[in-house]
């Protein structure tokens, strides 16, 4: 009888222990997840509910040219699209069910564009896309597109200011290629630049993502004549591009120590001058990574993508495209308590959110018809 009672007591203790461990394990699992404690606002294609200010911004930009971007077409593959900067009058430029097209870029006058074209089903890698697939060159409207090279050739191609040459990266060099003849007319050491290489509108500078002083993910500026490099930002920064004035650079950066509850942090959009001085926030929002930053041709507006996942969404279906006035920088979206602590001077200007896309570009040329 005593032994039976002891057995019951032991069984109860063991059962209680099992139940306790079960719930403790569940609790540990929840708290050890990689999801940061910062609440992530829901993503919607249209973004926040438009208010009077965003409606005013939409009206303001509606007739300021076109933005081009890649997005998933109805056929499921990546196609190239253009729309008015307010999102209206959207057109599918390519509509190719057998290809994935990505990363359109206009010449300064908008008469031509280049982009990468990959085989159907290819996953666009957010860091490798510059040497994925073929380089395509087309009219600014997307018409008469032709492959310029074979698979992986003319990596990270971008336009010269006059659109007659392209700037490319090879493992050994930066190469300047004449578009008419496809001949390399000049090469120079890439000095650690390894992706996202762009030529300034005045032709005097290059900017790119580089290794610098033992660090990766630095944004640098290179003197196009001498090859001399100066850093713009040497910590977790990438995707640089030029302002129309050739004196400022826009780029994304993920600063350290943004939050005690989120060690990874969020990528924000910044600007700096060509000496790497006067680094200023343009747009950021806790819960989102801001990439694809580019200026309107007049330098008055900024276009970007806003993705809850790092990398900008190229591996999936992109991310909502945002448009704001540069004069409203710095602007912070959402509650963003950590970011607001770091940038209390935020102007909180309106941001016009458009459909999901990736790598937007802006031209004032009337490429899409009236």
């Amino acid at each position, binding site marked *: 009888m005593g*032994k039976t009672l002891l*057995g019951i007591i032991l069984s109860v203790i063991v059962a209680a222990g099992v139940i306790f461990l079960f719930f403790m394990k569940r609790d540990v699992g929840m708290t050890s997840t990689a999801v940061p404690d910062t609440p992530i606002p829901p993503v919607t294609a249209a973004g926040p509910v438009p208010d009077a200010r965003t409606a005013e911004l939409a009206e303001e930009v509606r007739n300021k040219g076109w933005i081009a971007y890649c997005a998933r077409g109805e056929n499921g593959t990546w196609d190239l699209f253009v729309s008015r900067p307010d999102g209206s009058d959207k057109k599918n430029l390519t509509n190719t069910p057998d290809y994935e097209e990505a990363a359109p870029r206009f010449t300064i006058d908008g008469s031509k564009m280049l982009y990468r074209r990959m085989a159907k089903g290819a996953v666009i*890698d*957010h*860091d*490798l896309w510059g*040497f*994925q697939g073929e380089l395509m060159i087309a009219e600014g409207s997307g018409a008469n597109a032709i492959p310029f090279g074979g698979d992986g050739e003319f990596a990270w191609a971008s336009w010269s200011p006059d659109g007659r040459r392209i700037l490319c*990266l*090879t*493992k*050994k060099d930066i190469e300047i290629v004449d578009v008419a003849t496809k001949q390399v007319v000049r090469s120079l050491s*890439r000095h*650690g630049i*390894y*992706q996202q290489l762009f030529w300034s509108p005045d032709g005097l500078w290059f900017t790119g993502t580089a*290794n610098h*002083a*033992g*660090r*990766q*993910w630095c944004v640098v500026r290179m003197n196009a004549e001498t090859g001399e490099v100066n850093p713009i930002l040497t910590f977790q920064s990438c995707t640089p591009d030029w302002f129309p004035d050739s004196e400022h650079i826009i780029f994304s950066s993920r600063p350290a120590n943004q939050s005690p509850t989120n060690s990874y942090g969020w990528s924000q959009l910044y600007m700096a001058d060509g000496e790497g001085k006067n680094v200023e926030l343009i747009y950021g929002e806790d819960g989102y990574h801001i990439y694809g930053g580019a200026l309107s041709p007049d330098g008055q507006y900024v276009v970007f993508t806003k993705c809850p996942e*790092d*990398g900008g969404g190229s591996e999936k279906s992109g991310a909502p495209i945002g448009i704001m006035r540069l004069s409203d920088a710095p602007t912070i979206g959402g509650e963003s308590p950590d970011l607001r602590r770091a940038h209390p001077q935020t102007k909180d200007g309106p941001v016009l959110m458009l459909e999901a896309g990736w790598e937007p570009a802006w031209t004032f040329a009337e490429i899409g018809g009236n």
Partner: protein
Amino acid sequence: MYKPFIPQRMNPVRALFLPAAIALVIHACGPGTDTGEDPQVTTLGSVEVTAQLEEIPSELPDIPLYDYAYVFKYKVLQVHRGKVDGDTIYVGQYNPLKPRSQVADARSGRIGGNLKQFKSGDIHRMALEAPIDDYYMGGIINKYFEQNPPLIYWAVWTNRVIQ
């Protein structure tokens, strides 16, 4: 009812045989010597060395979304092919948290080996190219930058050596 546990006396033959068998298994499964030589390491790259990984100067970043090469400092024990200046070399290893057999991708091109994990003090047989920037275009973490290493090699093939 609970059945009482009563320890059983082990057969003396078993008592002797069991430890011997375990020792044999451990010996058979344990590391023998391995020079790291294979058809890849002896033919790829322009330089082939056996070298000791001196240290891992910082924690290796574990960010699967981003690829990088990490510069390690090696003490050269033997040069099999090519020419190496001095007995210290700096070698960029691509995505060092991955086993060498699984590390190759579109950015790295053909690289590999049988090394599974980088450990300070281990000896590696490597096929190398140089300078790294001529063979690899991507992020490089170089904790020895301040020491101004004259040349950074690119690890094409890395095998473990067991002495």
